[in-house]
Structure formats: structure tokens, C-alpha cells
């Protein structure tokens, strides 16, 4: 199984971008999701939203054109586009919470079969006896909540882009999240290096699969049971 080709991060982002329809407002989280801004399908105009108060920005800026006053929320310089606008941070999250973001593409540590999302702290704070200061004092990585909780509850549709398993090969698509939750029942689509999986009331539906992989291979690295879509196909871009 390990010699089969997995999608690279650019290709995962490219697949995510195929979900962007003309006129949509899309917010891209850090990591793989950020890359999706380069792959808007031909003929579609998408308004990318940045938490720090911009709508309608373009691709990542080159060193020559980079401007400290034009950054996305992942600390990357971006390019201006006609029709762009800026606003204050409170308005930026009014826009998120108020349901004006059509798609939020987020990274994840874990996604449960119910669509619960864990993406802000590598560990289980709920059963931890101390506070954040104690957590950091124990040499654990400081949790950074950022805007993920707002995006998870506010966006009309949450798509997760992530690698299918951890570095150790453990499933990241799980029955119940062991990591601290970002929000419950918020994810509707998971795009990984192995598959595209839809979260439905009936369970996880395997819709697309990386060329060369079989459904049972994907199932082997996925904790919950996968339902095979009747029209299951190879991931194509």
C-alpha cells in the first residue's frame, strides 16, 4: 500500500478549489487550504475572505510586490484584485458568523464521522487539570484558537483539507475526536491525499479516490466505516 502514489498538497488544494462556484465567498485556513487560492477554476470569480479584514484578494505576492499592508490571515503577502475591499476585524467576523462565507476550507487534526472538527490543539484539554499557562509550562505546544471556531460555526459549508493519516499512519478520520474540539458537526466534505469523503446523515460516503487506490485501502486507514458512493470515481481535477 505504501508504494501507491498519494496526492501532494497542491493537488489536494486544487481538488478543493473545484468546489468554488462563481460568485462565492471563500475563506482559506492556514496550510494546505491557503494553496487553493491559486486554483480557482477557469471562468469563475471567487471572493477570497481574510479574517484580518479583506475580501477579494488575489494570489500570493512575489517579494517584489509584497506589501506589509496587504496580507492574508496566514501571514502571507497577497496581491490586490479589482473589486477587493477592506474592513475592520469586528466586521470581518460579523461576515463569518453571519453566514456570508459560502465555503470555509480548514485544516484538521481529526474529523469525526459526525463532522466534528478538531484543529486547534494537539491534545485533550477537556480532561487536563490545569489552565493554558500550566499546559505551556508542561512543554506542550501552546494552543492557538484563532478564527477556526468562528469559521466552523459560521460558514455555510466547511471543507477540510488534510493528509489522510498522521505521520505515524494513524487515522485522522475517526469515530470520536480524541483531540479538543473546534466545533461539533460542522464539516461537510473531507479532501485528503487519498480520497474525497462526504459527511452525510447516513455516515461517511466515499465519493472519490486517488488513482491507484482501492476503497478497502482507504477504509484500512479510516476508523469509521465508509459507505461507497454509487457513483464512486477517481479524483479528477
Amino acid at each position: 500500500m505504501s508504494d501507491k502514489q498519494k496526492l501532494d498538497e497542491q493537488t489536494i488544494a486544487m481538488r478543493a478549489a473545484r468546489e468554488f462556484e462563481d460568485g462565492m465567498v471563500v475563506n482559506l485556513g492556514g496550510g494546505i487550504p491557503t494553496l487553493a487560492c491559486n486554483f480557482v477554476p477557469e471562468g469563475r470569480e471567487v471572493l477570497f475572505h481574510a479574517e484580518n479584514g479583506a475580501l477579494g484578494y488575489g494570489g500570493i505576492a512575489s517579494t517584489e510586490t509584497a506589501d506589509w499592508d496587504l496580507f492574508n490571515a496566514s501571514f502571507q503577502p497577497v496581491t490586490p484584485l479589482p473589486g477587493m475591499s477592506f474592513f475592520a476585524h469586528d466586521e470581518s467576523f460579523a461576515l463569518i458568523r453571519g453566514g456570508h462565507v459560502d465555503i470555509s476550507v480548514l485544516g484538521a487534526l481529526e474529523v469525526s464521522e459526525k463532522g466534528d472538527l478538531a484543529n486547534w490543539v494537539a491534545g485533550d484539554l477537556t480532561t487536563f487539570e490545569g489552565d493554558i499557562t500550566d499546559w505551556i509550562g508542561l512543554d506542550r505546544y501552546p494552543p492557538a484558537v484563532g478564527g477556526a471556531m468562528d469559521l466552523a460555526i459560521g460558514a455555510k459549508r466547511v471543507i477540510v483539507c488534510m493528509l489522510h493519516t498522521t505521520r505515524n499512519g494513524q487515522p485522522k478520520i475517526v469515530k470520536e475526536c480524541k483531540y479538543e474540539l473546534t466545533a461539533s458537526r460542522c464539516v461537510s466534505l473531507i479532501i485528503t491525499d487519498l480520497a474525497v469523503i462526504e459527511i452525510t446523515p447516513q455516515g461517511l460516503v466515499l465519493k472519490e479516490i486517488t488513482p491507484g487506490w482501492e476503497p478497502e485501502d482507504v477504509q484500512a486507514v479510516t476508523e469509521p466505516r465508509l459507505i461507497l458512493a454509487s457513483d464512486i470515481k477517481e479524483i479528477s481535477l
Partner: protein
Amino acid sequence: MNKIFNSSDQAVADVFDGATILCGGFGCVGGVPSTLFKALVKRPIKNLTIVGNTPVLGMAFQKAAARTMTVPESYADASLLLNNGQVRKLIISVPTIAIYKMPEPFPIVKAIKEGKDIEIELVPQGTLAERIRAARAGIGAFYTQAGVGTYLARGKETREISGKSYLLEYPIEADFAFIWAYKADRYGNLIYKGTSRTFNATMAGAAKITIAEVAEVVELGQLDPETIVTPAAYVDRVVKR
């Protein structure tokens, strides 16, 4: 009416022990009121509460994140105060950012490892912005869905509204707001620049005293009334960077 101060030292001269300070900017280099932090670090005050999205990432992080861009040596954030032992509490959304290779620990990690007594209140970014806006807007409290069912809901009142769960959140009452703006007039009207508007425009007017560090002071009437982002009523002091 003239809100222009001659120096940032003057502008922060009355910041007191135990004060709560809103720190403008998002965390990127643009839009951080560096001069005000550098003035405050010279004052013998402690026990500050620092409020901001990402106010204590520090210079080393910015240099790591800047890749091919050059961070101005004049850049500073509220980690100056943290490193200097002046901070007692952080109300914050992002204490550190994982993705870059750092030559040294983040300031918050360093401070806690050194045994400094620092309380951290972690707040979802949108809730942070809205709690600051609530202070500006005289809202007693509000309900948001962000954080429901998570660690950050601990100790918070929840309520069902139209079949959905919400958390009750309160305004952040601050003594000072340190913000950056692009241009100001002597009334204190402000305009910003690009994504450096961000938390600066949210915090303007949200504290008892709002102090704006600006790139340029212009004559009254030079700012188009249609394009003013922060009206003069929200700004108490202006100082040129």
C-alpha cells in the same frame, strides 16, 4: 480641539499599574503600533493586561515568517512588555504560531518557563473582536455560537436560541487602546491602509483612552468625510510614528 501629541512618551505617560491595554494590529508586521510599545516599556509600570489577537509573537517570529521580506528594525509588539516583566495577563487568540522554524522559543513560552506569573485567557478570534466591539458599542453582553461544546466554553453560560446553542460573552473593558492608523487629522479622524485596518479599527473607541500612532498627520479637511473609517469621537490622542 487638537488631539495631536508631540511624542509617544507623552501619549502613554498616564498608563498605570494594572491597566488593561488593547493592542491593535492582527499580528502581521503591518498595523502594529510599535512606537507606543517602545514608549511604554520605558515606564515603570507592571501588572498589565494585554488584549489582542497575536500581540506577543515577537521579532524573531516576524523575521522567520517574513521569508524574503525584510522586517523593519523599528518593529516591535507587546512582547517587549512581556519580556520586561510588565504583563500579568493576556486576553488573546493566538499566543504562538506553529508553522515556522524559530531560532528561539516564543516570548510567551519563554516567560512561562522562566516562572513568570502570567494568566492566559484564550478567546476565539471572532469572539475577541466582538467583545471589543461590545465595549465600543455599549452592549452589556451577547450570545455567540463560537466555542460551544469546547474547552473554551468552560464556566460560560449557554443558552438555546431558535434551536441552537450559544455562549454568553461579555465586553472587554479596557483602559487604553494602542492602535495604528495610516492618516489622522487633529480631530482624531482616522483612515487605515489595506489589511492593517483589522483590529485597529475595532479597538478605536473601545477603551477609555484610545491612542493612535499614525504614519501621517494631515490638515483638517484633507480626509474625505465619506472615507473616514474611525470617526473623531473614538480617538483621544494621535501621535506621529
